[in-house]
């Protein structure tokens, strides 16, 4: 046994906690898998395989008639516009909320290690607001908004803005709080304001993480706007819904190719921006 190998060294105090954590995770995960009826082998029975095969066979060749491509190009442009407008609105809401809930920017914390009662309650309220915004999926927001503002892209834009505001605000604050606090703490200790400490200390430390997450979320917004198209919020999703209902596999294939190209494009943008900031 290793305990007898070298009695001079005290045993690692973290070891037991780690083993317990792994065992607990397994004990919790296994019942979750069986309750969720996770049975991947269903995919492989004869009937499923035949249905899959027929649907996939109709994908070839992808539809490429000029008028269809023009229609898809317009829908793609609308999808990108919905995602970008939604993200912009989400950022307008998320940035102030991030600044409000970020504990690193607390001045009352300096020296005492505790934030003041007022700051704590404002932060908690804003956190609840963010939870509320992102706990409703964008699809559900879209269904609600389609009833209010009618069919069309407006519902999609607003739905993305609401959900993504909640996500961006939370994750931005967490990225900023998990970066090295040394630079912003030094500025605060010398009497700088909170926003100045954010701009000169915390932001340069985590700029590339923030950019990469923002571009990734933009990519998610593109996918989200496609899904919302199925409930009538416009864009590529609405076209895809129509093609699926008509079982036009070729058209679905063309649109899937466009999804791949869009995501690859977002990936490229993220890479370029991060290289610029590295």
């Amino acid at each position, binding site marked *: 046994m290793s305990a007898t190998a070298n009695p001079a060294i*005290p045993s690692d*105090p*973290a070891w037991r*906690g*780690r083993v317990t*954590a792994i065992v607990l995770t397994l004990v919790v995960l296994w019942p979750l898998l069986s309750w969720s009826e996770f049975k991947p082998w269903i995919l492989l029975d004869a009937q499923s395989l035949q249905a899959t095969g027929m649907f996939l066979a109709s994908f070839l060749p992808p539809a490429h008639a000029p008028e269809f491509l023009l229609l898809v190009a317009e829908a793609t442009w609308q999808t990108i516009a919905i995602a970008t407008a939604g993200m912009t609105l989400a950022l307008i809401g998320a940035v102030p909320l991030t600044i409000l809930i970020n504990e690193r920017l607390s*001045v*009352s914390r*300096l*020296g*005492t*290690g505790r934030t*003041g009662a007022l700051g704590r309650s404002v932060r908690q309220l804003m956190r609840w607001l963010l939870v509320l915004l992102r706990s409703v999926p964008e699809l559900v927001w879209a269904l609600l908004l389609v009833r209010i503002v009618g069919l069309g892209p407006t519902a999609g834009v607003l739905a993305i803005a609401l959900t993504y505001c909640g996500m961006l605000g939370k994750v931005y604050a967490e990225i900023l709080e998990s970066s090295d606090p*040394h*630079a912003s*703490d*030094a*500025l*605060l*200790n*010398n*009497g*700088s*304001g909170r*926003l*100045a*400490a954010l*701009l*000169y*200390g915390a932001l*340069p*430390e985590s*700029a*590339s993480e923030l950019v990469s997450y923002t571009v990734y979320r933009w990519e998610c917004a593109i996918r989200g706007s496609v899904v919302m198209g199925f409930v009538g919020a416009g864009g590529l999703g609405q076209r895809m819904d129509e093609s699926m209902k008509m079982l036009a596999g070729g058209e679905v294939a063309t649109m899937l190719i466009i999804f791949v190209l869009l995501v690859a494009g977002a990936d490229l943008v993220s890479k370029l921006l991060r290289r610029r*900031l*590295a």
Partner: protein
Amino acid sequence: MSFELRGVSVRYSPALPRLALSDVTMSIAQGEQVALIGPSGAGKTTLLHTLAFARGIDSGSLRALDAEPWGLSSSGRHALRTRIFLAPQTPPLPPRQRVVTAVLAGRLPQWSLFKAVASLFKPADPQAAYEALARFDLQDKLYARVDRLSGGERQRCSLARLLVSNAQALLVDEPLSALDPALAQQTLDVLQQEAADRKATLICSLHQVELARAHFPRIVGLRGGRVVFDAPREAVSDQMIAALYQQAGREPQVSVGEEPGIGAGRSFASGCF
């Protein structure tokens, strides 16, 4: 009076019984230049942070710049912080920032938010940053990025930030740790000259005992969180220095209540690797 401590004790953290500073009493006049010496872990950094109220005190009283920081509101205390400059031992400079921005950050307490934002696009006072850097022979690094600097250059860059600030008390934590002997001498000269010019108090923790004794009129020796001696340089003898550093860390730590012993491993979070 610049700083006045009476029986100040500070814990490492609220959960730990060990004291980082215990029963420290001293007063430092405005414009005085003091060197803090002592073995590693003696409490030099904690004392500097306590003087800058970057950390709270658990007992005793602290007066700084004719105010009682812990009797003030949080915003009152923050306003007082603009008059003190604390330079930490590791340079607090984001690697992706430009030197000119990092140095001018010393002006932030005086700037409006608008000016701070504008200065990120076009440096508000590059002349001041250039002159501050020139005093450390770093003027050619004005527009370089911080991560292109060597360790010693970064350290002097963070001291250039001190030069552009307008604080009346300069608390500098081991400013020479990354410098060779010649640069250490020059850097210390610049710091002392600057403090004398603006009649600011300079408190500097140092590991170079010889430099401390050669340059500072007053020497404070710390060990195990206690002030061992606090004397003008003429009164500090070689025996006092030898006793200060003798078998550093071998004596039992000062603690309140029970001795934590080897079971002190509980102070690590399980997320530490």
